């Protein structure tokens, strides 16, 4: 019980003795976690945007005249990654065309025999699924021609994988940076109290008693930094989305409160864990070295 009191006192002494260092760490950690959160939001938003756009991703396969639509449809269905297939018979296609032409529909009668092919309209899930699907469709004997927004789909899929890789890289960099910053702060705290640690170990303090204040210091700094970052991020995100949505109304941004709250919790959790790991690494190595006899 009394040990706990001593522990708390020592932890706060550590935090406040070098308060400049503590503040700096806090801000660095916040910056790193802000970056982490921002990149998560970016990639979540990119995915969200793509989902919206991709919802309308359709490949049209014009079949050879006289092909059995149902059979072709079953064949295509087996390809996988397919959300929906709509079969359009030549008659249906003609009806649609007429509807679209409105009061000039009588022109269609000039076409004589219905020249429109039976068609499959295939919806896929992801932009990246379009090009392979198109290639497989072209290879089918039944298919006469394939039409799809190839450029757009491919661009979207490239952009999506770019954002994915970017936020992955940021994730890795941010974690490494957070560990480095925390490790270094605790290491400097340990270093600046090296004589004290030596003496404490020499007069019979256990490793745990010596290490715990440093570890707690690291965890508190990690937690506070991450919490600060999460707060700033979520507040900043709300207003950024407001500004961006009004200038670029054609883009759909993510505004899912539960998801954002979960992001905040994940950030704070990561802050605590990284603080723990980093300070443990920093202090244990030092204590082991200090305990080693000459």
């Amino acid at each position, binding site marked *: *019980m*009394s*040990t706990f*009191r*001593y522990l708390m006192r020592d932890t706060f002494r550590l935090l406040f*003795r070098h308060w400049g260092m503590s503040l700096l760490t806090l801000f660095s950690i916040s910056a790193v976690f802000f970056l982490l959160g921002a990149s998560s939001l970016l990639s979540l938003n990119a995915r969200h945007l793509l989902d919206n756009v991709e919802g309308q991703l359709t490949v049209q396969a014009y079949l050879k005249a006289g092909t059995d639509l149902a059979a072709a449809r079953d064949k295509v269905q087996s390809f996988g990654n397919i959300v929906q297939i709509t079969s359009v018979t030549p008659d249906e296609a003609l009806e649609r065309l007429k509807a679209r032409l409105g009061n000039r529909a009588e022109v269609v009668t000039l076409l004589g025999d219905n020249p429109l092919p039976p068609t499959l309209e295939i919806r896929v899930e992801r932009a990246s699924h379009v090009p392979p699907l198109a290639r497989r469709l072209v290879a089918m004997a039944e298919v006469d021609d394939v039409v799809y927004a190839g450029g757009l789909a491919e661009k979207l899929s490239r952009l999506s994988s770019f954002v994915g890789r970017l936020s992955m890289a940021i994730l890795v960099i941010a974690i490494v940076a957070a560990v480095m910053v925390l490790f270094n702060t605790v290491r400097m705290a340990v270093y600046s109290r090296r*004589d*004290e640690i*030596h*003496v*404490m*170990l*020499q*007069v*019979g*303090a*256990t*490793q745990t*008693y010596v290490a715990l204040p440093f570890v707690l210091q690291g965890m508190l700094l990690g937690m506070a930094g991450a919490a600060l970052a999460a707060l700033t991020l979520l507040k900043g995100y709300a207003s950024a989305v407001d500004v961006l949505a009004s200038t670029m109304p054609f883009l759909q941004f993510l505004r899912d409160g539960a998801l954002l709250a979960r992001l905040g919790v994940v950030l704070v959790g990561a802050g605590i864990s990284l603080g723990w790991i980093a300070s443990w690494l920093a202090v244990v190595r030092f204590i082991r070295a200090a*305990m080693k*006899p*000459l």
Partner: protein
Amino acid sequence: MDIRISGVTKIFEGDIVALDGVYLSVGAGEFVYLVGTTGSGKTTLLRVISREVLPTKGQVLVGEFDLRRIRYNDLAYYRRDLGIVFQDFRLLPHLTVFENVAFILEAMGVPPKEVRDRSGFILERVGMWHRRFLRPPQLSGGEQQRVAIARAIVNAPAILLADEPTGNLDPRTSDEIVQLLTSINASGTTVIMATHNQYLVDAYRHRVVEVHRGRIIRDEPQGRYMADVDL
């Protein structure tokens, strides 16, 4: 706890032989002066006992602990049985005199009230109570030394290792300190005191062990000591 040192040799890097085949037994409750010229190995011998230094060769047994084999976790508990007055004091400059003495007890998990009482009592005893709010850099050399002694004895150790505990004290205060150590010894604590002070060795008779170039060259039981040795 009795101390048995057998065949201990310590060679530091750079082929510096600090101890060279030392055999020494100190029974529980003894008072031993460790004398010898500068650099003869007194401090190293004390550090072997506190396991700050691991011998290159030889065995050290203290109570039931074999210091070669002691595990990390036991080491902390072993050291709680020791009191050490370091030759260079090693007080913590950020803490006040009072805190310097109290933190030892805190590290052992002693409750706050008892920490206050025992620390205060011991500071009274070495005459440093009136300086309890100062920090070590604000003390005179002799005052720092007395705080170091207070810290070493506050946990009522079974063995007290005092390395030159009167180096910065005037003769009168030195007398008082040795009287203090003697009374602690009388209550059962083993005391090993390294010293250069010939006067003290003469005045307060105890067993005298002389070290020279890392070897024990004389070991006189209490009262048999002759004043011609090199301190």
